[in-house]
């Protein structure tokens, strides 16, 4: 390798690394902010969501393009895997006014939010919409006594212990971290879930008003006046 070639190779790979780092930092800085950066293009997922719900849905703006940025665990903001059944959160939450914890029944009492059992789905769908193709898929799983193999969207690494109930009981709205799942025909990862993003709230505090806005509500006076809720940021809070 000549001296000249060396100075081509090193900056070249360095540029890729820097670009990746900047993309990551951008994702981290933007994901909790609540509004897309000015001039950013609508992503494919956003477009699909807009078409499905008839209104613009705040989407994952940290990346655009099909392959996208993923962190080293293979997850990243905007990840939106195709699910075995096209479960429409908007219908259940917005139209039928079902609360999140109706199905994710353990979110306020366990580290694990809980996924509804196939039997829970069938409690309604034995009768309701039994002739629809997606519900038929569900019935098929139920008849075979098989679980629905949902593809996981949100995941923190194994060395992080995230207790859902502490956050839910502290009043953190689900949408603060998960985005407006109630407007997502196909769920995508809304926040980066990286540590800087977590610690941002733990150190600076969670604003109830911002949480309500993230959930699509206009904060009331009480929320606007409420102090930011901080939490311990000691490493061993989550890492053990």
């Amino acid at each position: 390798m000549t001296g000249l070639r060396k100075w081509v190779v090193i900056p070249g790979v360095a540029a890729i690394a820097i670009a990746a780092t900047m993309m990551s930092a951008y994702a981290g800085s933007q994901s909790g902010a609540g509004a897309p950066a000015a001039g950013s293009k609508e992503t494919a997922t956003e477009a699909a969501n807009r078409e499905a719900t008839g209104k613009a849905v705040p989407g994952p703006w940290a990346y655009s393009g099909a392959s996208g940025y993923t962190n080293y665990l293979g997850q990243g903001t905007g990840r939106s895997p195709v699910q075995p059944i096209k479960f429409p959160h908007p219908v259940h939450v917005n139209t039928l006014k079902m609360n999140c914890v109706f199905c994710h029944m353990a979110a306020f009492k366990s580290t694990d939010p809980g996924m509804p059992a196939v039997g829970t789905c069938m409690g309604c769908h034995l009768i309701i919409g039994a002739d629809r193709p997606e519900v038929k898929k569900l019935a098929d799983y139920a008849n075979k006594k098989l679980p629905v193999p949902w593809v996981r969207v949100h995941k923190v690494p194994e060395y992080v212990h995230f207790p859902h109930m502490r956050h839910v009981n502290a009043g953190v709205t689900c949408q603060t971290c998960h985005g407006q799942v109630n407007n997502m025909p196909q769920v995508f990862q809304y926040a980066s879930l990286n540590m800087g993003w977590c610690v941002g709230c733990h150190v600076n505090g969670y604003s109830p008003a911002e949480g309500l806005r993230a959930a699509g509500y206009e904060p009331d006076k009480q929320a606007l006046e409420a102090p930011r809720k901080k939490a311990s940021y000691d490493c061993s809070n989550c890492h053990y």
Partner: protein
Amino acid sequence: MSQDVIDSTPKDGVKRREFLKVLGATGAAATLVGCASDKVEKLIPYVASPDNTVPGVSSYYATTCRECAAGCGLVVETRDGRAIKAEGNPEHPVNHGALCARGQAGLQGLYNPDRFRGPMIREGGKLVATSWDKAIAALQAKLNEVKGQGKAGTAVFINQHEQGSFPAFLDQWLAAHGMPAHLSYDAEAPLATVAANRASFNVSWPKLDFAAAKLIVSFGADYLDGWGLSVPQQLAFAEARAKLDDAPRAVYIGARRSLTGLNSDTWIPARPGSEKAIAEALLAAVKGSGSLKAAADAAGVSVASLEALAKELQSAKPSLLIAGGNDDDATGTALAVNELNKALGNVGVTVKPAEGSLAYEGAGSHAAVREAGERMAAGAVALAFVRGANPAHTLPGAAKFAAAFAKAGYKVSFSSYPDETTDLCDLVLPDHHALESWGDAEPVKGTLSLQQPTMDPVYDTRATADVLIALAKSDAALSAKMPADYRAFIAARVGGNANLAAALPKGIANGSALPAPAPKPVASKPGAGIGQSQGPFHLHVYRSPVLGDGRGANKPWLQELPDPVTKTLWQTVVELHPETARKLGLEEGDHATVETAQGSLTAPVYLYIGIRPDTVGIATGRGHTSYGRYANGCGVNPMTLLPVAEDAKSGAVTLVSTRAGVKKADGSSRLVTTEGSGRQHGRGIARAVSVADFIKGDLHDEKEEFVGQASTAFLPGLRSPVANDAQGELGDPKSKDKGQYDPNHWSGVAKRRWAMTIDLAKCTGCAACVTACYAENNIPTVGAPWQGSQVMPDRTGFGANITRSREMAWIRLERYFEIDREPKDVEFDPDFETRVIPMMCQHCGNAPCEPVCPVYATYHSPDGLNVQVYNRCVGTRYCSNNCPYKVRYFNWFGYGEADRVQYAFPEPLHWQLNPDVTVRGKGVMEKCSFCVQRIREAENRAKLEQRELKPDEFTTACAQACPSRAIIFGDAADEQWSVAQQLKDERGYHVFEELNTFTAVVYLQKVNHPSPAAATKA
């Protein structure tokens, strides 16, 4: 020499540093590309949601432990349908919440990767998988055939000895088929003691009240080594020792100082088989007649030692004398000891027949199984059943049980695992594991300890009781007598389903099991006797306190648990006194061949100062040929050396019944041991004080102010200069914002100071805490041959990684002999002191590991923990080098990664993994975390219930399990916690406090009780 040679870099090449730069950047790019692929992970919901469970929240089931006969109560923690931890049931009358290592390791029996997946049938000479319908039909056909031939009376059913209704239930079934009653077999059962107790007190096992005694004398009874009723005895012994200045002195009589011997203050090293002579001579002496000279000569001990004991027996009242030898007249010894107890007025005071245990009720003799083997060899047995027992491994080799069993007409095993006996069977109908089945036990008269499934069966197994019920279906008369299933039977024992449902949460009910059928007496074969056999040494075979008779050998936790005495693991050693080894030209690790008239075996030598020079000791438990991947080929089985020689009165196999020759064999290998040195070298790690000094208050060598006092070292908040450094400005005491290290910080984290006390007066060194820690903290076992490289000849095979000090035990039991010479130079002297000390991360307030970490992966948390952040760790191992306690462990391989050969949790062992604890990756340092996951869980629970933590609300896994109740954990900054009170104990000290580490673990000195004679001499 030319310039070119010195500077070998080609002119237009890349220099090393530049190459690294390029490599680094390329690596980053490769990482980006490599991870662009999405790992698809699934979220699998339940099909139907089970009642009363919350995902991610543990459910607890009370049940009964079946790892030995004692019948301890368990509380099994299950998470999302899987049992993940076994703990003692705090409300159980036997174990009061404690649990031994073997009980903990029951989970690895449940998830054993070598378990039978379903029924097996022999076809073309091999066992092949079959279906339950076919297997039951095959057995049904065989039953009908045998009955048709009129040979049902020849059938033999060997069942593990167990408490509860099942033995009687089984006998009903056998009787209905015209078959004789089953043979109850437990190779570990102390049959001689049971036989003597029956004769003397008309009960099988009186309650032994250690705490009421002033003197405890054991005649070969290893009451802290798993003999008898392991956990209750240890609880009682620790309770007695906790009385400190008022505690009983303990004396051990036996050829080898077992863990019980090491915990005793005086050792009388009697020749094997001479315990009876001593007991009888003492009885005479106590009654005021006879001389102890003959007994002392027979035992090869000094007359003075026996005279001192006789004198002490007369003055120290009440005393507690326990017999538990394994020689050819062990019942004789036990009878003499019972007489001694009567003569000394101990019966009803320390020996309480009225409050006895029923654990050994119905235990059959070993002679009966040997005799059944003889009938099989003669071809007189048409049908043989075996369940939960492995006589081919546990009977003496001379009994030739395996060959005999092979000659039985049709052989059926109900074993869950392949083993030496099951391998010979024609049909295998694998039983559920105890944690998957219904059952009952009656450890105390009138109290039923219930056994219930804690989870759905791991494999396609079936409870034997339910198989018997299914087999009865074809016979209308028998079927009418049978319950619908065994659960219904258990429900009927407690008075119906409603009562059962009410009793299950506690696992205890009033009621009684079907009375255990009395075993039919079988004439025993006394054998030649020790005196008649040839050889310069007594062969002292003893039951391994860890593996027992061998049933624990397929559980890697137990294989990797160092023997409490020898500290060896994954290996059988030949124990010789250094004096003897010198004469034979043997050094530690040299291979020695032990020969008897029955056979020979070769194993490495371990130099043990606690064994008579004319005795060679070998532990049972290893040397399996067919017991799964963790047992096969590991160690040797000393039972092959033993003749058929049974205790005449009880029919117990005698483990000390022959003499042996020892000679040097070729080769030498590094001992597989976790021990660096068995000496303290004046470091004051495990400290003790004599009772005289303790009474005087002369507890510490130096008179300086004791830093462990709660007033100085355990105040909340910023106690750690290192924490200052690690936290930069936040930790600066002059800074306005000390961050979370400020006790007044809004988060309140620094208000707590987690700390632990360990009472060395109670700790016996049993190592139950070690296994509890493995279970709780997902610690990998590393000793299997495939987990280490195979390059060096003396470091291959089982334990290869251990010889490289790669064990991962976060807590270890250090055992120190208080003598200043190295083992190889020691002359025989029975008078030496042993100390044990559990050693784990001391959670130093001023931790040497913290400042050397280049990436802040280890730091001091505001609540007093020395935290290891796995995801930050880059594996420099500086911290481990700088740790004075050597309690940090490095992941040399990816033990937690399923695609590596070193994987420590092969399917389904990984079902046991605690979801609250990270499975560490390769290249990461790990260590005791003070069970931080339990702290956080308790905090989360308290927050959910909108309250503060309650004092002593939770504890660490080691403290929970400890059968001595020696470990106390809690918040030292809150006076209401027990640990805060314990910290004020004047016996307290920190290990290496001269290093100013300000540890959060405080040890309380042991109190020694030298013999009255020795005390006056000093």
